[in-house]
């Protein structure tokens, strides 16, 4: 049980040399005292009633000692105890507990107020002693923001506790039957205890929170690594293999870029019910199939109705045409939502064509674009000439809600 002034071991529930859950030994190591002291203290508190609660709380709040910490243990005596619970010691403590129990039963009940005062007086003394111990002082301070003032308050509370314990003890020797005063004292003492214990418990809770955050962060990091591996690394491998096909390389890169973007900036759940995301999705799908980059710019947004749905279908057709026939390497799509109508422009700088020369039976432009728009009360205009690229303009009125 060596004790260093600067470095207090953390409070862990000990794995080695424990009797029940390792709280006693852990506390003793933390305080730098013999485990017998802490065990006896816990036992005594147990008869006061609160000891059991304190023990259970410690089991719950204090993290078990990490398995790797074992190397620190150099005390040859404890090596024997390392493998688990020491049965003979446990039996000794149980016998002691039993004996004390019989004693208290003989003396008239476990809830004798006198006992409470003794116990709390001792607790106050312990607090004061801790304050005086340099190894623990820095431990206390690290858990608090206000340094010296808090420590003074704590010292004061410890003194108060002892005073109350002593006065109470004396008072109760004379008037044991005045239950009212007893309640007042018990209340005062409980307040004192919570004052003293609060910073420490808060510290423990904070520590737990920190650990939980750390765990979540690690989880996220693992998830990110997995995602990068499944998507980006995979695509990079594909790109290396297809390095001789620039079109395919570009397509792969664009697909990956889009996937990564949508993963990074996740859209809200109702994303596909309005114009902007729908138009972007249409463009992405066409681009994925035909490999020509499509830039989408949208101004304003509104829910999709039947007419807009048709316009989106027509826009898809226009994008497909531009990708297939224009022979260009970029297509611009602009969507604009006005108060009364929705406009979509699909423009390429490709070859263009002579609109009048398109045979009547070519369904692409006339059927899927112009016809579809007109059926929904909209219109489609196609501006093109050989060598000047093509722009398809779609216009559809918004339905009035």
């Amino acid at each position, binding site marked *: 049980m060596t004790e260093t002034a600067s470095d207090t071991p953390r409070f862990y529930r000990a794995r080695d040399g424990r009797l029940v859950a390792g709280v006693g030994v852990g506390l003793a190591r933390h305080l730098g005292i013999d485990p017998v002291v802490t065990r006896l203290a816990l036992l005594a508190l147990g008869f006061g009633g609160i000891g059991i609660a304190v023990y259970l709380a410690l089991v719950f709040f204090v993290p078990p000692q990490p398995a790797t910490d074992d190397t620190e243990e150099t005390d040859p005596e404890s090596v024997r105890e390392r493998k688990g619970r020491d049965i003979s010691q446990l039996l000794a403590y149980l016998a002691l507990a039993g004996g004390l129990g019989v004693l208290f039963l003989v003396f008239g009940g476990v809830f004798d107020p006198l006992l409470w005062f003794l116990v709390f007086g001792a607790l106050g003394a312990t607090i004061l002693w801790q304050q005086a111990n340099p190894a623990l002082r820095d431990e206390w301070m690290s858990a608090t923001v206000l340094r010296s003032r808090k420590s003074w308050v704590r010292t004061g509370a410890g003194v108060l506790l002892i005073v109350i314990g002593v006065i109470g003890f004396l008072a109760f020797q004379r008037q044991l039957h005045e239950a009212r005063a007893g309640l007042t004292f018990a209340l005062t003492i409980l307040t004192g205890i919570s004052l003293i214990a609060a910073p420490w418990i808060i510290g423990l809770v904070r520590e737990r929170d920190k650990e939980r955050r750390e765990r979540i962060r690690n989880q996220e990091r693992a998830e990110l690594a997995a995602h990068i591996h499944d998507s980006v690394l995979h695509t990079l491998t594909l790109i290396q293999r297809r390095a001789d096909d620039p079109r395919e390389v570009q397509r792969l890169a664009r697909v990956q870029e889009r996937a990564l973007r949508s993963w990074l900036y996740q859209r809200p759940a109702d994303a596909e019910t309005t114009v902007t995301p729908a138009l972007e999705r249409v463009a992405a799908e066409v681009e994925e199939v035909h490999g020509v980059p499509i830039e989408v710019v949208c*101004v304003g947004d509104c829910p999709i109705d039947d007419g807009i749905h048709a316009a989106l279908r027509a826009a898809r057709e226009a994008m497909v045409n531009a990708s297939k026939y224009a022979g260009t390497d970029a297509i611009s799509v*602009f969507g*604009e939502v006005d108060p009364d109508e929705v406009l979509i422009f699909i423009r390429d700088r490709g070859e263009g064509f002579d609109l009048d020369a398109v045979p009547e039976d070519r369904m692409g432009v006339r059927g899927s674009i112009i016809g579809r728009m007109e059926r929904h009360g909209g219109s489609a205009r196609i501006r093109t000439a050989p060598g000047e690229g093509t722009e398809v303009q779609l216009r559809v009125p918004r339905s009035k809600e």
Partner: protein
Amino acid sequence: MEDENSTFASGAAIPRVVIVDDHRLFRSGVRGELGDAVDVIGEAGDVDSAVHVISDKQPDLVLLDVHLPGGGGVEVLRRVLSRHPEIRFLALSVSDAAEDVIGVVRGGARGYVTKTISGKELANAIVRVADGDAVFSPRLAGFVLDAFSATDAPPLDPELDRLTQREREVLRLIARGYAYKEVAKELFISVKTVETHVSSVLRKLQLSNRHELSRWATARKLV
């Protein structure tokens, strides 16, 4: 985009450029793509060295990445423009987030282009900005249209808080992918007039303190 070359042939001196981007690979890529069109006189990879290099070399134009270690492109703009207001900035970013785009333009950049831009288009944009014009990508034009129409509230300063009909038309055409020359042809105006309109929009964007602008940009974090 061969039709954007008008300013190119004007015989102006080749602009001296500093490239600020935290990816070394990207800087050398841009340097290679630009070739002889511009004179790259310096590079920097973070805010502090960027401010240092720019103050030291006094370039005509800075090609500025939006995301930089040490405070981002906006910080470079803030620190350089206070002392050297004559230096022009063209923002360059992979981010299409409205917040970034509007932020850097309001910070003083005279244009914004995405990193997917071709070398030739980039060289054109650089020459244009170095000449004192503004460069709007279709995306930026869309943002501006959106931002200025985002509210029904009456403008505090009609001069700054509202776009004219003509400016809207120009922006809409740019958003549709039209080059300045094509915009001019479409609206029966000169390229110079188009440039004037775009510069005026840029001025409004930078000077309007309508809080809707920033609020709109924050609300629309992504595109």
